[in-house]
Each structure stands twice: as C-alpha cells, then as structure tokens.
C-alpha cells in the first residue's frame, strides 16, 4: 500500500507495481464496472438507445455528457491537486478528417443498427438477439477495415494528424476555465433536452426528481468552480512536487554526463538522442554540436508535453548550455514535465571543447578552421562561451562531430535508461 501511494501522482506504473497480471486484472475490473454501469443505464436495449434520435428518450445524451463532465472535473481536479499528471494521460490524437468521416459513418450505423460498439457488448451479455446480430456485424466491419485500409484509404486515414491537440490549445484558454464553461453548457443542454422530451411526449417530466437534479447540478458546478479557481499546476509547482529527490540527483552530480559519454550515445544506434541546446542564438550560430536543436527555455514546457512525451522509450535527452546554469534550468523543466532519461552535458559546450578540441588538432593537423581558446578565459561570466570562433559556422567545425574512435576516454558512466511506456488508446 505504501508503495502504491509513493507511486502517485497517477497514472500509476501498474506493470511495475503489480506485474502484467496485476495490470490486466485491474483492467478487467474497470471493464466490469463499465459494463455494469452501461447496463443499469439501459444501454443494453436498442429501442431505448435509438429513441435518442427521435427525441422521445434522451438517455444516451444525458448519460454520455454527464459521464464526460464528471470524468472531466475529476481529471482536471486531480491534476490541480497534483494527484494526476495530465501530461502523461493518453489524449486521443486528433486526426481531423478521418475522425469526421468515421464519426459520420458511425452515426448512420447507430440509427441503422441501434447500438454503438460498447453498448452492443452489453446487449450481447444480456442475451439480446439484436445485440448478437450487431456484434456479428461489428466484427465483419472491423475485419473489412483491417483488410482494405492499407489498399484503399491509407493516405486519407493518416492525413490531418494534429497530434495531441486539446481544447486548451485551440481556444488558448486555461483548462479550468474550459472545464467550468463545458459544465455550464452541459447543464443548459440537459435542461434543453428535457424540455424537448416533454414537448415530444406531451408530458411534464422535467419537474420530476427536481431536487435531486438541482443538488447534482449545484455539486458539479461547485467542483468545476474549484477547478477553475485553483488552476492547473505550473511547471514550478510540478518541480516542487519532485524537488526533494531530483535536487539531490543534481547536487550529487548523478545527471551531469561527461562529453565522452555523450559522444558514445550519439554514436550508439540503439539509443535515439535528442540534443537540446538552450543557449542564445548567436552562440548557437557560432558553434554547436551536430544535430543539436536550439530551443528557448520558454518553449520547453510545451514541447515536452506535445513532442518529447510522445518519443519512443529509447530516447535520451541531453540538455546543454555554455556551462551548466541554463542547462540545469532546462533539466528541471523537463523533469517537472515528466520526461524520463534527461541528462545535462557536464560543463556544457565549454567542457565539450575543453575535452575534444585539442585532440582534434592532434588527430587532424590539417583542420584549419578550429576554434582557439579565448583570451577572455577568466573574465567570461557564468554560462558564457569561453572560446572564440573565426566564423559562425554552426556545426561545420570538426569538433562539432568529432571522429575520435582511436581514443579511449575515461569517464564515470551515469546514464541509466528508464523504459517507461506511455499509455495508449483502445
């Protein structure tokens, strides 16, 4: 149990905690709860589902949207309190047009067949004959897709991929504000669909269980209001949550890797390296290590969430600045954003040049464009470039991509690749 609480914030590494069997057992239990809930709501009965489209019984809409808003306030509420790490939660990637086309086909299928996939499983489990026929059809449809997608529509199916795109990105609003707005919208829509139901059925059901409905509406509004007022954790907040352990790793210099270790990983084909250079553009243009990307510190939190978290597990991130100050800031940001396998280039670009530039001259005396140590060596401020370069050649210097295979370097290996699989979708 203690181990379980130590694993928070969620999502929890279930496989690590309880093994694959434990993970699958928990999935089974979640599935049982899901199936049970669908059945008690009447989702095993096709006539009740289809009534949604003739305005006589809007149960589908009510259940789906109350499910969405309850899960939403809980997800963002837990995230606001630091119990759940939203950046590691699976957000369905947006493939805009395939989603629209698939959705339209499904809408037609819903009216023709009277179920959607999940509800048809519940109908089957409660022996409804139309549910059984639907599941057979469902299997045929899925089979047909698997058989012809590559041949027919693969280009369209993979088009308009916008990645992990959220409503926060789209509307440029904080999550809490959207959460509150969506809850208000849902409550208004619930009132509207009940009004429509009453009009179509010629009844006055709206006033039934009015007290319960109002209590529910008030409760979710209050929680949504709390989520909005509390706000989502900033990068600094997230760093505070992990600062105890992580600051120790920094202080003990567990994460500052020697230039030679970094060179080894650049040349290792089994590991993807992403070299993140957080220096000023002028320094970067003067000199940088081959394949390094220049990133502003301010861009890092967003890049981490949208891009780095999606990288395969064998990706090693190395951040660098001229010395270590800015790189250390970058490291903290990436760690706060839950990126694994992040290291700092020890003593930065200056350290890299200290280690390799003389060897390069030695191994290739003909390279005439080599940087020479600056005369300002001592007076350079912290995290300043201590070398002068004859021209802004970027990564065209030999020492940007040193070929020093005949040399043996001594260093303390520090990189320990952690393999963490990101959550996927169903």
């Amino acid at each position: 149990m203690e181990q379980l609480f130590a694993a928070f914030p969620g999502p929890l590494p279930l496989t690590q905690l309880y093994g694959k069997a434990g993970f699958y057992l928990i999935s089974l239990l979640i599935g049982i709860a899901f199936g049970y809930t669908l059945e008690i709501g009447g989702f095993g009965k096709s006539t009740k589902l289809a009534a949604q489209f003739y305005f006589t019984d809007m149960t589908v809409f009510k259940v789906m949207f109350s499910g969405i808003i309850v899960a939403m306030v809980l997800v963002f509420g837990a995230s606001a309190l630091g119990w759940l790490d939203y950046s590691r939660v699976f957000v369905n990637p947006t493939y805009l047009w395939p989603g629209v086309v698939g959705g339209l086909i499904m809408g037609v299928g819903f009216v023709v067949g009277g179920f959607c996939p999940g509800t048809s499983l519940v109908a089957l489990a409660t022996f409804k004959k139309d549910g059984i026929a639907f599941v057979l059809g469902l299997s045929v449809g899925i089979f047909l897709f698997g058989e012809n997608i590559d041949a027919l529509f693969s280009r369209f199916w993979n088009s308009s991929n916008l990645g992990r795109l959220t409503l926060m990105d789209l509307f440029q609003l904080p999550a809490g504000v959207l959460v509150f707005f969506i809850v208000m919208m849902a409550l208004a829509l619930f009132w509207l669909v009940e009004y429509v139901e009453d009009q179509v059925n010629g009844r006055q059901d709206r006033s039934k269980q009015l007290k319960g409905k109002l209590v529910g509406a008030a409760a979710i509004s209050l929680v949504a209001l709390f989520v909005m007022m509390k706000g989502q954790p900033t990068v600094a907040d997230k760093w505070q949550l992990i600062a105890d352990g992580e600051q120790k790793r920094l202080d003990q210099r567990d994460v500052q890797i020697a230039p030679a270790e970094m060179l080894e990983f650049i040349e290792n084909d089994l590991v993807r390296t992403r070299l993140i250079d957080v220096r000023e553009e002028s320094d970067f243009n003067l000199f940088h290590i081959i394949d390094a990307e220049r990133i502003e510190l301010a861009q890092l939190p967003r890049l981490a969430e949208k891009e780095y978290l999606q990288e395969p597990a064998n990706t090693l991130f190395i951040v660098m600045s001229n010395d270590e100050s800015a790189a250390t800031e970058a490291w903290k940001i990436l760690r706060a954003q839950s990126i694994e396998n992040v290291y700092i280039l020890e003593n930065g670009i200056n350290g890299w040049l200290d280690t390799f530039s003389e060897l390069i001259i030695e191994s290739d005396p003909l390279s005439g464009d080599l940087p020479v140590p600056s005369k300002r060596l001592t007076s350079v401020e912290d995290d300043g470039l201590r070398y002068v370069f004859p021209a802004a050649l970027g990564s065209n210097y030999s020492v940007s991509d040193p070929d020093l295979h005949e040399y043996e370097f001594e260093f303390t290996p520090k990189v320990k690749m952690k393999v963490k699989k990101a959550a996927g979708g169903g």
Partner: protein
Amino acid sequence: MISTHSKMEKPYTNPYLTGAILGLVLFMAFLLTGSGLGASGPLNRVLVYIEDIIAPQHINNTPYLIPMAGGDTNPLDNAFVFLTLGILIGGFLSGLFNHRLSFITNKGPRITEKTRWSMAFLGGILMGYGARFARGCTSGQGLSGGAVLSVGSWVFLLAVFAGAYGVAHLLRRLWT
C-alpha cells in the same frame, strides 16, 4: 426466455446518476492506467488473433495488422482485451441482478424480428468500419477523449450525432 426474466425487470437507473458513475469509472481508468475506456479496439484484436491462426502470412503482409499480430506478437496480450472481457462480465452481472437477462429482440413496432436482425447486422458493419476509421468508438474516442478535452474527440462526437440525426428521419420506420 430464461427463468430470471419471469421476475419483474427492475427499472433502469436515473440517467444522470448512471452518467456520474460512468464518469467515476472513467476517471479511475485514467488515474490508474492513464488510458480511458474502449470497446472496438479489443474486438479487432480478437479477430486478428483468429486470423493469425488461419493465415499468419497474411497478417505479416498487411501493414495495419503487423503492430497487433506480426511475427510472435500475441494480439490478445493487451490490457484493453481484458477491459472488454470485463464489459461482457459486468453487463451480464447487471442483467442477472436486475432480472434483465432475456433472449428477446428489441425492435420498433413496424418491422419484423428478421428485419431488425438484418438491420442490426448491417448497422454493426457500419459501426465497426466507422469506429476503426475514427480510431475509436463512442467509448474510446468520444467518451474518453471528450473527458480529457481532445479536439479530435469533440469533433468526432459532433460528427456521430450529425450522422445519426441526418438519417434518423429517413429511417424512422425502423424505430417508430
């Protein structure tokens, strides 16, 4: 008709209460596993599993199927398969406790059972194809993605309702 049906079927739970429980289950799924709920993906895996027994070579030659069952990969070795199995068990248990297990066909008053079955089969084909096209069904894409505010999931939900309301009047004979 099996014996449990002879007792009175219990009425369905209030939709908002059902929704609240559903939301809680969905939240637990996110908190524990990091992913939401799903139903169409695992069915795909079961099919691919059978296909892999019959024609493994074919799987290895179809790019879409390789990640699921190419080479030695077992398509059933996936948490979502267990989640789907759970949906069946959970649905059955609720049917059992609430006396709703019954071999019946739910249909509109104007069509025969046979018409209902063929339409259910046809609708199933559309649903299965559409759900794979949209990379998830109403649960996996709509409900789960909607709750974590994915743009694609909200657009998808609008498309599902648009598609359904677009043909509902035309097909009213099936249900009214």
